[in-house]
């Protein structure tokens, strides 16, 4: 009997008091804003805001979970785009070597830029947490900072090399 109850418990999705994060909200928003490099940034925070509006989503733990879930999705996009750019840069660098070009290779610049972004993200979001000096708002504020900056960087990388000559 106890085993059956345990099996039932394991079969139910997630835990009841955890707010549900819907990853489709972000995917749909990115589809909706595709082709417009500026507006995709409105997607940042949409899915986690919907998540926080659900039961359990307005507690400190719930907010943290919602924000972390969206950050994870942006991080996945960021990694995909970074890998794509790095591959492209490495191929271009290899071609330059073949041609005997003295031009500076692009891949090390991309890697350094990403390292500098991580330092920027960490120092900004650490500062955001410490501003609250141990208060319970420090967790969600820092998590929000991570989500915002990760989303922005994912979109920067996604749009890098896209033609935006007409942009003002």
């Amino acid at each position: 009997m106890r085993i059956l109850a345990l099996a039932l418990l394991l079969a139910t999705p997630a835990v009841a008091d955890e707010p549900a994060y819907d990853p489709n909200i972000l995917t749909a928003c990115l589809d909706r804003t595709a082709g417009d490099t500026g507006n995709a940034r409105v997607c940042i925070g949409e899915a986690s805001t919907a998540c926080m509006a659900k039961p359990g989503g307005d507690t400190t733990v719930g907010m943290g979970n919602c924000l972390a879930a969206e950050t994870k999705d942006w991080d996945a996009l960021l990694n995909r785009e970074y890998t794509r750019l790095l591959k492209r840069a490495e191929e271009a660098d290899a071609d330059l070597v073949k041609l005997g070009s003295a031009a500076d290779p692009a891949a090390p610049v991309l890697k350094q830029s990403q390292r500098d972004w991580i330092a920027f993200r960490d120092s900004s979001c650490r500062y955001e947490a410490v501003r609250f000096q141990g208060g319970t708002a420090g967790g969600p504020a820092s998590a929000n900072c991570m989500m915002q900056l990760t989303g922005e960087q994912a979109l920067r990388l996604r749009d890098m090399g896209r033609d935006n000559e007409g942009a003002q």
Partner: protein
Amino acid sequence: MIRAGLVLMALSVPAYAGDASGFDPLAIDQCLKDATTQGARADCAGTGMEACLTYAKGKYSGDDPDFPLANCLDASHQAWEAKLTATYDAALQDQSAKGIKPAEMLRQAERSWIAFRDDLCNQARDAAGEDKAKLAGARCIRDETARQVALLLSLGDAE
């Protein structure tokens, strides 16, 4: 009488508080005032550009087609830079009152932002190719400065 003369003079030039570029920095303040989220604040980046370009295209008679845009991007960047300095100084003053640690962390965050911005905008310049490098770099630094203003302003939101 003197005052009336000054008002007339002020009215005869375009009503911009900034320099001769025709860029109005007050448009940025208005946009930031109306924006309620970090994303919306960052989207204020291009505010004032259209009016500046119309003005610059009307005034410029040279043969460099990129000049009006380059000039307006530069004026826009200057306006955002001033905004960033003011926002950062206000935050630093606020944090210094709370202790050495948060103020030092803010300084560190700003230093790391500068390193990141320089890398990113150098990349943007390189990627754009020789003839468009200047515009791409100017656009990058203006956009990133606006985003940093949005970030610093939004850090105060949760309080």
